[in-house]
């Protein structure tokens, strides 16, 4: 194992052994979601993020033009603008300037860009003292750490630790009372602004139209840092450019709401040019930081990440972040956006571990105020790293030699069904595995591979549809096919009742997501081709699915994989159009009449699968079907939070994190006192059934299609 990987695993273990941190981040996540919803109650979030994306896209499409416009206007207003190509360049400019002007003390307000380039270290090396004045940043500076959140840098620390740090500064014992500690910071830092010869700030926006900067802050320290010292250096990433004041106003309307649930922050500060300072005018330097941003802008697949307005919401809602915090799930920038920015600003090697830490639940995509499809970009980076560093010989062999060869893959699965007998003892669940596999079943039983897969049972499943309304092809996916074949039988039963005939194209193969998520895109492309051919062969009216991850593969990934292939592109698009998840198909296309289903009086709670709700946009449909079929539906807390499955995430890459996320979900299910938990994903089903079985729970775990089959008259 590489040293880097070892250190990373140590950080995970350390974070997992700090329940206080997890509790704080979970509470924060809940409070954030509520505050954010309240802040946006009277606003159209979709319209706002579309507008932000559009403004930022203008910059992406015409970067040089807006950069020139900004520099020209800022210079005309008396600013000196320096374009720093990388971290060294920016650090050198700022330290040289400080040395030339005889600066001893720098008062800094919060700037992630300065964290990015490790400016404090550069200043200290040059004999200049940087004083962080943002409360959170000051705490971090005193502790000798790095921020664990973009907006709340010290969110991982507790008031007792802060009191200890402050006591060292004041030389007396400071009580760990928050209001008092804030007072101490006010008093201690006050003199810093007055004594500092230079103020350093970041900026939230650089407005091309005016050459001005806008700062979005709460504490008031940035106003002091930009007012009192005679020299002001603003360190600004080039992605902060916006074309006009209107665009800036849109960001101001959105950013505080999406960052902290505030309608607006205490201060919005617009600074254009060198303003008066004492009897003279201020010396204003704007350091525009590239440091990988140009390269990012050139990456077709990743460039949307430059639309980020640094609100931090992608971390707030992330189950992985809530479990391990930003010191594990990030480098300097944290959370989903942090993975991407790290790869471009700090190098792919710094992102190698965290790029695999994303569980792919798309919670971040839903709240991103710039409409960035973070998950897709992360997947792409995983492919790139897979190509650069390899994905591991074992995996590579399985994907290339086995997955791509359907006959071999399926015969191996059939063999597994027989070979597993010593551990299954003829049951459908594996509760213990011997020796070094044992950790796999320590916290979750695993289902056995079925004796006969659905593809072999298919010809014996009776279908009686006299005048079919539709003929649909069923894309089962590996879990449904080889582990849960009974789900397929239930699907036939329900669809037949609704006058739909179902076929099972025998040449269908794995959807390729396991390979894709592991970074093997070549195998994923080959599988896309095999499946497009197989599923369209009999020209079905629709292709229905029971697994939302497969659904996303058929609807989204295949199109992407094959878009440059003239033979396959149109076919992939046709398949995407025909593909629909079974709940959506029944609810929206078939629209069953009242009385189709009998009345069952079971109390059921529903778990939203990530890729169904945030991929396919389906969440009302299964609830409607469950209610229509007589189930008493009780909502659990965090119904749409990931269950921690994530395919290989919970088996090989991050089982310890997956286990904690599962525990949260089991707890939410338990709170409802429901007799059954329903879902529309065999992966979630494997995870939840395994977790509930291990805890001895009696709660039934069912796919919606199984419950519908049960309730048929």
């Amino acid at each position, binding site marked *: 194992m590489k040293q880097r990987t070892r250190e990373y695993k140590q950080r995970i273990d350390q974070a997992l052994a700090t329940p206080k941190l997890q509790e704080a981040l979970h509470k924060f996540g809940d409070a954030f979601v509520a505050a954010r919803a309240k802040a946006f109650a009277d606003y159209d979030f979709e319209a706002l993020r579309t507008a932000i994306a559009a403004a930022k896209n203008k910059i992406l499409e015409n970067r040089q033009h807006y950069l020139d416009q900004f520099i020209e206007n800022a210079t*005309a207003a008396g600013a000196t603008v320096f374009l720093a190509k990388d971290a060294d360049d920016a650090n050198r400019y700022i330290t040289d300037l400080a040395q030339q002007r005889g600066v001893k003390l720098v008062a800094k307000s919060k700037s992630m860009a300065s964290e990015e380039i490790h400016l404090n270290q550069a200043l200290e090396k040059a004999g200049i003292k940087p004083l962080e004045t943002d409360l959170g940043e000051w705490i971090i500076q005193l502790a000798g750490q790095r921020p664990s959140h973009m907006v709340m840098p010290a969110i991982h620390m507790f008031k007792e630790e802060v009191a200890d740090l402050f006591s060292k500064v004041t030389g007396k014992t400071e009580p760990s009372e928050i209001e008092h500690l804030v007072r101490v910071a006010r008093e201690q830092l006050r003199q810093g602004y007055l004594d500092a010869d230079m103020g350093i700030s970041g900026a939230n926006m650089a407005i091309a139209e005016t050459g001005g900067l806008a700062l979005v802050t709460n504490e*008031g320290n940035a106003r002091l840092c930009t*007012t009192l010292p005679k020299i002001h250096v603003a360190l600004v990433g080039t992605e902060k450019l916006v074309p006009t004041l209107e665009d800036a106003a849109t960001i101001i309307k959105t950013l505080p709401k999406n960052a902290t649930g505030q309608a607006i922050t*205490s201060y919005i500060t617009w600074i254009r040019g060198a303003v008066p300072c*004492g009897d003279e005018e201020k010396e204003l330097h704007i350091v525009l930081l590239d440091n990988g941003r140009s390269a990012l802008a050139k990456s077709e697949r990743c460039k949307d990440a430059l639309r980020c307005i640094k609100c931090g919401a992608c971390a707030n809602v992330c189950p992985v972040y809530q479990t391990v915090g930003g010191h594990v799930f990030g480098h300097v920038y944290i959370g989903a956006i942090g993975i991407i920015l790290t790869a471009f600003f700090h190098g792919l090697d710094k992102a190698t571990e965290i790029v695999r830490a994303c569980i792919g639940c798309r919670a971040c995509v839903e709240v991103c105020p710039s409409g960035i499809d973070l998950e897709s970009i992360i997947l792409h980076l995983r492919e790139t790293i897979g190509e650069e560093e390899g994905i591991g010989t074992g995996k590579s062999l399985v994907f290339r030699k086995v997955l791509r060869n359907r006959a071999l893959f399926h015969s191996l699965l059939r063999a597994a069904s027989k070979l597993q007998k010593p551990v299954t003892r003829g049951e459908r669940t594996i509760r213990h595995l011997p020796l070094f596999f044992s950790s796999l079943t320590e916290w979750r039983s695993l289902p056995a591979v079925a004796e006969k897969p659905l593809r072999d049972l298919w010809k014996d499943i009776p279908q009686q549809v006299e005048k079919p309304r539709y003929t649909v092809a069923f894309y089962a996916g590996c879990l449904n096919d080889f582990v849960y074949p009974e789900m397929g039988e239930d699907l036939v039963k329900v669809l037949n009742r609704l006058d739909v005939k179902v076929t099972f194209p025998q040449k269908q193969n794995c959807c390729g997501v396991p390979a894709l998520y592991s970074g093997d895109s070549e195998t994923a492309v080959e599988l896309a081709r095999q499946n497009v051919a197989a599923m369209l062969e009999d020209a079905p009216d629709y292709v229905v699915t029971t697994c939302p991850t497969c659904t996303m593969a058929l609807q989204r990934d295949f199109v992407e994989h094959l878009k440059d292939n003239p033979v396959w592109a149109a076919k992939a698009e046709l398949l995407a159009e025909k593909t629909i998840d079974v709940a959506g198909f029944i609810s929206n296309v078939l629209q069953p009449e009242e009385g189709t289903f009998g009345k069952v009086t079971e109390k059921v709670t529903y778990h939203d699968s990530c890729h169904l709700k945030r991929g396919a946009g389906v969440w009302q449909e299964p609830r409607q079907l469950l209610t229509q079929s007589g189930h008493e539906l009780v909502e659990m807390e965090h119904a749409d939070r990931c269950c921690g499955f994530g395919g290989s995430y919970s088996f090989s890459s991050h089982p310890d994190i997956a286990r904690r996320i599962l525990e949260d979900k089991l707890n939410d299910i338990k709170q409802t006192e429901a007799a059954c938990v329903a879902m529309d994903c065999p992966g979630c089903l494997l995870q939840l059934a395994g977790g509930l079985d291990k805890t001895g729970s009696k709660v039934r775990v069912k796919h919606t299609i199984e419950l519908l089959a049960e309730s048929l008259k």
Partner: protein
Amino acid sequence: MPNKKNIERFSTAANAVGAVVASLTDAAEAATYISEHVAGAIILPPSSSLERLGLANELAKHDSELIQDEFRTKAAQASAGVTGANFAIAETGSVVLESTPEATRLASTLPEKHFVLLDPSKIIDDGDDAVPLLRRFHQEQPRNFLAYLTGPSRTADIERVLTIGVHGPRELHILLLDGLSDDPLEN
């Protein structure tokens, strides 16, 4: 004409973030209000609306210690700053203060209390409506420092507990006074 609905919306939003909003009738009342809330020195930077109002004279009647020069050296000792406002935004309860002159910035950043005198007819609907005004500032001034002030200074950096007054003012008082100014470009 002051728009009653906007004043209400503004006051509700400002109160929600911890600002105090009071409606007053004249300079004497404003001076009384301020002196009742301040024990120490008051920074009073140049302001066309407040000069027309004659606020300095009224404050002097209360024996308030006023700082009206050498702001840079005296500001750190002041207990309060008093400024006008260019305009205000109902949507968020923000006052907008053109702060290009350094004295205005010192008065609104350093002391523990900030008093803003605002003509309620200058309350606009929302942040989007502020843009044309911002643009006018930029057209008329080659350089500027503009500030939206919304409630007192705040932080939640320790355990996410909202705490008021970390670096900027701990109190923000917005005093509404009809007839003070109808020009959003002046304060």
